[in-house]
């Protein structure tokens, strides 16, 4: 008692157990819980996606308020260094399997903020992105299409960004640390 356990320990690799693989993937695809975290302007498009008009709930998706229970994080728009830190933290607090959806042009290549002193240019250097949805901003229909595609990938067992993140953690960390100079982040457990 007393000491902080499992500190700075590298996460273990996780493998699918064979027996329920199909059922698991099927269930995961049909129960995507999205953490309600808007990083940029795209967050405003995310809300209507869940309302009556577009009704994302029919695909089994819903918003949750806490990263612990979420499966999907949607990076909705440009990311500044300051926000990136929070996104990384939220991502690492989510429980595996977990998926990243990048919304809009900015996470892909910086978008209109390509020359900003503070907005990152490419998200996939820092987090494993499973689905990119382009547009500035993508409309809810596009978002839904993106989620549908994500579901297909999960069903096929191809949405494995979370595994890759664990495997190549040092690489991702290196990239993250390159821009986050003052690394005051705690280390997490996966």
């Amino acid at each position, binding site marked *: *008692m*007393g000491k*902080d*356990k*499992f*500190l700075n320990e590298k996460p*273990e690799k*996780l493998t699918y157990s064979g027996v329920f693989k199909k059922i698991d993937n099927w269930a995961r695809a049909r129960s995507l819980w999205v953490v309600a*975290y808007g990083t940029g302007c795209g967050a405003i498009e995310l809300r209507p996606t869940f309302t009556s008009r577009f009704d994302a709930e029919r695909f089994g998706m819903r918003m949750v308020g*806490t*990263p*612990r229970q979420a499966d999907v994080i949607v990076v909705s728009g440009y990311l500044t260094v300051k926000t990136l*830190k*929070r*996104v990384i*933290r*939220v991502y690492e*607090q989510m*429980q595996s399997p977990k998926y990243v959806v990048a919304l809009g042009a900015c996470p892909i290549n910086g978008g209109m903020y390509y020359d900003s002193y503070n907005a990152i240019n490419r998200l996939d250097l820092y987090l494993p992105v499973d689905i990119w949805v382009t547009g500035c901003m993508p409309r809810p229909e596009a978002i839904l299409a993106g989620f549908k595609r994500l579901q297909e990938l999960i069903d096929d067992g191809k949405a494995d960004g979370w595994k890759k993140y664990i495997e190549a953690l040092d690489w991702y960390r290196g990239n993250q640390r390159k821009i986050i100079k003052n690394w*005051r*982040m*705690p280390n*997490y*457990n*996966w």
Partner: protein
Amino acid sequence: MVNPILIIAITLASAFFIGILQVYSKLWAKVFFFLVLIFDFVAAGANFYGFLSGKITSPILVKIGGFPPPIGINLFVGKAEAAMGFLIFTITLLGAYHLARRGIPEPQGKAMVLFLLLSLGAAGITFTGDFFNLFVFIEITSIAAYGLVASAKTEKSLEAAFKYMVIGSISSTFILLGVVFLYKATGSLNMLDIAKKVKTFPLTPVFSLISLVFFAGLLIELEVFPINGWALDVYQGADPVVVAVLTGAAVKAFYLIFIKAGGYLALPSFFQLSLIFGGGTYLVSQFLAWRQRDVRRLLGYSSVAQLGLLILSAGFFLNNSLPSSSRHFIALAIVLFVFNHSFAKSSLFLLVDNVETREMEGWKGILKRNPLFKFIFSTSVFSITGVPPFPGFWAKLLLIFAIPKEYAWVVGLILLGAVAEIVYYFRFYRIASDGEGEKVKKNLASPLAASLILITGGGVAWSMFSGYMGIMFNSLIIVFLMVAAAIYIFGFSKPLQWTASLVLLGYGIYRFLPSMKANLHGFFLALVFFGGAILLFATYPTSKRLSWSFYPAYLVVIFSLVGIALSTSWLNLFVYWELMSWSSFLLVNMGKKAKRAAWIYAIFSSAGAYSMLAGIYLLPKLSISKIGVTGVLIPVLLITGFLVKMATSPLHIWARDAYGESPDEFTPLLSGIMSKIGVFGSALVFLYVIANISSGPALRYGLAWLGVLTAFFMTLLAVFQEDLKKLLAYSSVGQVGYILLGLAIATPLGWNAALYHTVDHFIFKGLLFVAAAGIIYRVGTSYLPHMGGLIRRMPLTFLAVLIAIISLAGIPPMAGFAGKWLLYSALIEKQWVFITVVAFLASTLAFLYCFKILHTVFLGQLQDENKNAREVPFPIAAAETILLVATVAIGAFPRLLLDPINKVLNKIPGMKNSGLFYEKTLGAVSKLGHWNALFLMVFTVGSFIFALIFFALTSARVREVKQLDVGYAGEVPRQVEDLHFGYDLYAHFRRTVKWLIYPLVSKIWKGIYEWTGTFAEVLRRFYTGNINTYAAYVILISILILHFFAGGK
């Protein structure tokens, strides 16, 4: 035998001789002065001893100049006079010694002469058998007193002396007139002769008038209200040593002559006169002192009040219509009162002399650094306020029980005054013991002697008391009490004290084992003993910081509780009750911030005890058995005393702070056992008194409401407490409310519930308070928001507290549920619908604070300053474990507790069929429902383990995370404070129930206190300080006396 004339003559002669000797050698004058005083002391003592031992059988009659009694001056010394003489010289000697150590004021000779004259005059007043001679001695005393009062030569003392002199002159004028008129009417000055003549000739109004003139003069000297302004000014202005001697010796001599003259002159209105003036003075003065800030004047008010009580007693003593036995008791009471007051008040005034400041604020914390001073001060204050075992207590008891029932209102008056007395004396005590004061001058020999005399007197009085009142005290308990007090001497080593206490308690258990029979007494006896032993065991680890007197007081509490549980008479119970109350007062007062709490506790517990005493006084017989009474007054008075200890609702306001601020080691006992003895008392009242009166059901219904409202409101208040111990205090009080409810139901099920809950509440609340003591010891605070996250540091304590809380909340598999179940079954059986609803709601509200305790102490974020806290020390952990096991065991097998309770109830008529029987599958079955404790326990634990194993096998890979790692909006928390939600947990709920938790009751009590104080303040303006006014009062009152009391037959 020493001839009294020698005492007077030698003193008189040497008084003037000293004046001469002084010129030549100050030292020798001093020596001579003391030699004379010692001679007087020894001579008076020899006379007194002669009377006591029976060597002198008849009163000593001294003829002076060879004239036989009716003609010449003579001295008459009976038993009373001898005793008074001894008292006078003892006090004088003490005062003189004190004065000498302090330094006799210059010019020395004068002071010594006056001192001798004063004592001589007082002795003369006592001894003389002649009215005119009396007048002479009065004048000698007065002049000496004027001189002594003025001898300090400060502005205040001179003013006091002048006022004293003016009023004294008027008074002596009255006395002189009275004497002369007496002579005119009877043709004699000899007291005995006049008494003889008075008996034979018809009491004419004129004669009454004549004797009233005399009595008016005496009453002025006896400082009755409202003609005592001068006296208070003297108390305030004069040298305290002089005052000590005045109030201890001179005034007592006046009192003696008051009684004697009352007897001799057989004034028909004497009774009314003393009742009105004595009672009035007593009551009014006690209240006038309420807000007094000047210590000396405060003591003055107290003295005046005590004199009033004495005058009152004198009236009863001389009332021929009373049976001789009660007059005998009153005489004893008077002796004890005089003794008590003389020594206690002198000792207090001598203490006052050691402190520079007059203002009470200047006494702040004075007791802390001066242990001897503290001892003397406490003894004197306790003695004056009538705390057992000091003589004042026995005197009060004797007096009250000797007053016949038709004067019950006088008893009420006495008790009311006694409560007021406790209010202001203990306010004084509180201020004196609060904080750290300065060291004071050490001139404590005389007061120490006085207080030792007091203690001895108390012991003697106790031993006499049992003989006089026909009450048998269990001598074993007294022996234990004395040994317990004696543990004080091991105070240098706390472990030794602890061991000795445990051994003594263990031996007590062994000796009292045969008394633990299957009846109500035995039941509570067992609770007291075993509970006390567990709680005492847990005090060890923190014992180092305790004061010397902690363990003695603790044990005295326990053995007083034993005494209460074993009492067969109400009076006996009352004595132990008071002993318990006051020793627990001492314990509460040991808390650092507990002074105010202890004061309120003292007020409430003494007021409750006096209410109980009034009830006992009204009872037709004193033995604890079935009593036929009518009316609700007696049971209400009786039960009020017990309800105070249970802190039932309108009487609860002492509880929060007394529980919260008392030493952590003592609080478990206060909550776990002492409140239960209130339950015991209430049970006795329900059983023997309320059961037999015609309005019993209504009273029970009212008490049930009281109980359930207590439970409800205290629970509500507990929800909003931010202090661990205060929260538990409110919780405790609320739970005891349930017990009262159970008792009030008065069906077998209800009593089952009440007794079950009594034991169970001890178990879990004892556990909680013991755990709280451990936590506070480790964490260093009892403020809830400063704790949190301690589960990782003290897992065992957490487990214990968790189980206790589950039990407290009444969640099934633990022991607490049985109590709830029994109670609700009883309520529904009784069909008290509204009470049932409130009771249910209260227990729902309890969940709120249950969670609060667990969360704010153990869960949430661990504070940085508690990072290094460790598990509670071993003895506390052991006690926790014992109680924990008990909770679980009783939870699984409630019959462990229910069977003994059934045995107890079977002894009680009307409770025979407890209404519970046991079946294999359904468990305990009542008329209404059933509940299978063992099944529930097995089911809960079994399925819990099953689910746990299943969970552990199937769950995902579980990792433990760091303390600050919470999903907090992606933010990195910088500090614990940002994350810990520990303050004002129920702010939202408080806004909802704001109107329910309005502190109405405490506002009412506070209002009573404040308004009484204000009233007294206004009334005190009556003493304007202007001597003209005082004189006018004197004349006016004298005229009124002459007008209204002169009606003879």
